[in-house]
């Protein structure tokens, strides 16, 4: 028994840490079924499906959610395209200023959000655009901070790529364009999709930068921030649960697809 325990102690401790990270998540899921007795809730008062059936009971929350989804989608799209191009440039091409480019990509990830957010705000104010703060300024900011993460993800996927497949394609008289679209791109695609998922969740989740550059617009995290003093509606927990389920579904599907493909190759 003690030998068994000693053998598995590290694993058990690790699983303990992992379980701890799920405590608040469990509370979020539980609270999504809560029927609160008062507006400011600190306990589970009763089970109900009401929150799930009436997600948009608070119209302001759903409006904020809609804005977050729109911005998340557009920011992901632009950041993924620009970031993928840059990733290819950094791994596959040689050009003057490569190391400066790498530094430029790295720095936004190393700066605290409050600094990124306040810099952008001073720029918008200096450019006389303080009246224009809103959808477009949020979008610009989100593309900016998602971009580096996309570049780094695509870059490492590309760098880890075995280039014998591409050489084989070239040996078999494929044109460079054919080689790219039939071999290289499908191999890099999982990395690009992973980067897109990461971008979306970064954008959807951002509060600090958005809060400084949003003018009168309210994103979902800003709604939660504004509502918390008076007590957030239980539907916020439904959204939290749905986000978790959505991303788990994406990740697990991706894994299953790539397993099947690997099996097909063998």
């Amino acid at each position, binding site marked *: 028994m003690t030998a068994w325990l000693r053998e598995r102690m590290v694993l058990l401790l690790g699983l303990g840490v992992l379980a701890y990270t799920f405590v608040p998540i469990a509370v979020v899921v539980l609270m999504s079924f809560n029927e609160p007795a008062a507006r400011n809730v600190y306990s589970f008062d009763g089970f109900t499906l009401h929150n799930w059936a009436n997600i948009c009971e608070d119209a302001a929350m759903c409006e904020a959610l809609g804005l977050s989804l729109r911005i998340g989608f557009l920011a992901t799209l632009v950041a993924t395209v620009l970031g993928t191009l840059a990733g*290819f440039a950094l*791994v596959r091409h040689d050009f003057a200023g490569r190391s400066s480019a790498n530094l430029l990509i790295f720095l936004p990830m190393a700066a605290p959000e*409050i600094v990124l957010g306040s810099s952008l705000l001073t720029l918008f104010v200096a450019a006389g655009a303080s009246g224009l703060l809103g959808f477009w300024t949020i979008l610009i900011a989100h593309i900016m901070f998602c971009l580096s993460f996309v570049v780094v993800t695509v870059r490492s*996927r590309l760098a880890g790529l075995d280039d014998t497949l591409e050489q084989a394609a070239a040996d078999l008289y494929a044109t460079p364009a054919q080689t790219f679209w039939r071999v290289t791109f499908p191999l890099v695609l999982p990395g690009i999709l992973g980067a897109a998922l990461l971008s979306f969740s970064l954008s959807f989740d951002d*509060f600090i930068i958005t809060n400084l550059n949003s003018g009168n617009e309210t994103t979902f995290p800003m709604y939660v921030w504004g509502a918390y003093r008076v007590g957030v509606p239980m539907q916020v927990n439904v959204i939290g649960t749905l986000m978790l389920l959505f991303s788990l579904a994406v990740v697990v599907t991706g894994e299953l697809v790539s397993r099947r493909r690997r099996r097909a190759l063998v």
Partner: protein
Amino acid sequence: MTQAAQAVPETATLAAEPSGSRRRRGRTGYLLMLPATLWLLLFFVVPFYSLVATSLFDASGSDFRGYEMTYAWGNYVDVVEAYWQPFLRSLWYAALATGICLVLGYVLAYAIAFKAGRWKWLLLVLVIAPFFTSFLVRTLSWQLILSDEGFVVDALQFLRVLGPDDRLLATPVAVVAGLAYNFLPFMVLPLFASLDKIDPRLVEASSDLYAHPFVGFWKVTWPLSLPGVVSGTLLTFIPAAGDYINAEFLGSTNQRVIGNVIQGQFIDANNSPVAAALSVLLMVLIVAMVLVYVRRAGTEELL
């Protein structure tokens, strides 16, 4: 391993330059790089310049009347005098949270890398899963857990760790715990990335040579995992130092951090020069600490 799960540890390693194979010269490289470079120059580099400029404006102006550029270096002296406390508090909370994350994160990353076997990918997915539930919602959830009526306080009071009137919410303990919780994945993923690369035969060799497992760990595994330790601590410390969501949700006005002050000065007080000076100062302090730290750890090639 899942691509998305894999993407994150790779992203999380700061190691800048993966060794590429043959690279093509010519115009295409510039064209591919151009859009991203322009975007970052316009919305990251130029804004930083305007932040520094704003911090030197005459602070007696206002956002409505406009400011005068007077190279008011005195702004910096003023903000240090007025706000050195939240400044130190931010750095201190972030350092404590980073320490806690390092301990918890190392255990978890080690277990996944060496003990999880074929469940590795599943555990990695579970590490990032909480990360996909909104940051603010997660932190509110902690507020609920640590609240005076919550089970944690009840249990600690029962065990006499806390007195009957003591509380957890609105204390530094809650803020640091929240920070340590929220930034844990940033620690685990780079640690995992570097632990996973370690050849287990090296550790076996140390035990073949009669090294005690602890000695083997200290002389073999730990030094080889240092790049992960350095990136992990940086990726945790930097965002934690700028964060104010945890301080707001889990602390009280006595736990105000520099992020609270900066956003308050920008948005509520409309005092851009003061807020800008604080931001610049935060950035300079963090860069200085990072440089010293990286040099100490002897892993300069990371940057």
